[in-house]
């Protein structure tokens, strides 16, 4: 029974290089035209594209049907504003430190504080595309559910964590937070209150390397939160 049901012993596929990624960029450009704002192919690693917000849905369709990315990986968002609270290492009794609050986007650039981020992969060609789009001030994007059905829950998560609305989404209820929760926890200006009431003991985290003597380094401060499960 085992051998009849098992898959064929296909050899390990020869991983295609960056030619596929370059081709994907060309396909997207001919499909979307001006709406493809920027692209980046890192040789041997990965590729990124950025599209205009109004072309988000068309970009998804192009990825699925033209580039051939059949597998939906994830969808999320990024808040590019640096956190006004830093990494939570401030002394709460002191006045807040001055921080550089200039917004600087990552790969393939951007103009807005919030960016949508999604990834889809190809099962047969063994490569994936990370796609980004700037989100305007109305914080509304078209939904990807008609493109990839799996985007449903990811959009619900992005909605409650970042406050992004997805036009056409049937059911933007909260997944994690109680109904009526105020604020969007994954935004950088949402404070992590646990850090504010009690300073974190693990700010200095130096662990001796194997073979090195454990000298004055504070090696016992790496314990995480209490054990779950």
């Amino acid at each position, binding site marked *: 029974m085992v051998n009849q049901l098992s*898959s064929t012993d*296909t050899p390990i596929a020869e991983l295609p290089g960056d030619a596929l990624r370059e081709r994907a960029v060309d396909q997207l450009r001919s499909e979307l035209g001006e709406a493809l704002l920027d692209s980046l192919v890192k040789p041997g690693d990965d590729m990124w594209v950025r599209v205009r917000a109004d072309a988000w849905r068309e970009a998804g369709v192009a990825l699925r049907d033209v580039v051939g990315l059949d597998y939906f990986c994830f969808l999320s968002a990024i808040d590019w504003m640096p956190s006004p609270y830093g*990494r939570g290492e401030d002394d709460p009794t002191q006045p807040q430190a001055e921080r550089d609050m200039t917004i600087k986007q*990552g790969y393939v650039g951007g103009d807005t504080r919030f960016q949508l981020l999604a990834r889809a992969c190809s099962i047969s060609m*063994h490569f994936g595309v*990370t796609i980004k789009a700037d989100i305007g001030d109305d914080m509304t994007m078209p939904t990807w559910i008609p493109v990839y*059905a799996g985007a449903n829950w990811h959009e619900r998560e992005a909605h409650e964590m970042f406050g992004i609305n997805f036009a056409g989404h049937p059911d933007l209820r909260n997944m994690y937070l109680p109904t009526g929760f105020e604020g969007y926890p994954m935004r950088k200006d949402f404070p992590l209150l646990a850090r504010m009431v009690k300073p974190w003991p693990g700010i200095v985290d130096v662990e001796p390397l194997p073979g090195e003597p454990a000298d004055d380094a504070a090696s016992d401060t790496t314990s*995480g939160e209490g054990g779950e*499960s």
Partner: protein
Amino acid sequence: MTMLGDRERLSYIASQAADARLNVELETEGMTLNIGPQHPATHGTLRIICRLDGEQVVWAEPSAGYMHRGYEKLTEVRTFPQVTSLVNRIDWLGSFANEVPFILAAEKLMDIEAPPRAQHIRTILFELSRIANVSLFLGDLGVQLGAITPVFMAFRDREYVLNLIEGATGGRFHPNFDRIGGLKDDVPKGWIDETRSVMKKLRTFCDEIEDLLFGNEIFQSRTRGIGVIPKDVALQYGLSGANLRASGVEYDLRRDQKIAMAWDKIDFKVWTHPDGDSFARCWIRLQETREATLIVEKLLDTLPAGPVMAKVPRIIKVPEGEAWVSTENPLGEMGYYVISKGDLGPFRVKIRSASFNNISIVPWLLRGVYVPDVITILASLYFILGDIDR
């Protein structure tokens, strides 16, 4: 209570009878069944709200979030080496496997690679956590269907694997053993021989489960042809791991991507099944457990000598950039999208966990199934609550 006259009483009875006839002729009154949050079939605290028509589910909605711990937010206030202690707790049955993609993403950004011996031991521990995780699934599967014996065998034999993980890392559930640039330590003396003997035991366990459970007529009739996921739907929802391979998609990130791990050094089989039903998903996991024991043995045979840690600075600052790394975890594709701004800690980490996508198909999948099958379908999808909620 008001007294009704004869006439009113008669008309009341007549209207009741008419209602009843309508119900018989058209449909029965719907009922909402709430499974969970505390239910053995939910492996934690997942709540499934089903609307029933008779014995059939017409609408189902999983309600997650009872265990949301906000790890994506917490990573933003930790340093890179500290994040592993958090992500350990995402899929707590296969903890070590959660650390690996994050560490690999950080290493990719820093442009360093772990020494070959560290990569090998990482892969061995990765496969051991797969065995520990999936063997519990195989035992638990029996419980969902009313067979009690397999779960005792699973707990018995998983203990050997946990002892191995403890022997190497010091932690049974949360090893926190992976470091940027390698591993905390080498494996102890005698560990390799011990591992070989345990792998034999685990293969015996797989054979026992196959005899007891997979050959069982009741098991087959409860799972065959139930909860069928076609290939294209599985891909659309981003199902991964055994759930995807059970729908006939030959996709395994251990084989299908270039990654700084030792899977490309050995030969192993990617199991698929064409049916896409509950049986196929369970069967794939059984074969993968057995395959994982073979992978561990092959890796032990080719274990290179050398250091287990690359040269990394004592205080780790990760250069600016973005990286996506995902691996084939026990539950499916687990990946981290790490954005660094050249600081001690990550700027943003998007955790793509397998169960989140795997369980998002439930509203689609449960439509039209019978109530007892809800339990088997959920069991065969195999999710860990921490992996859904993060």
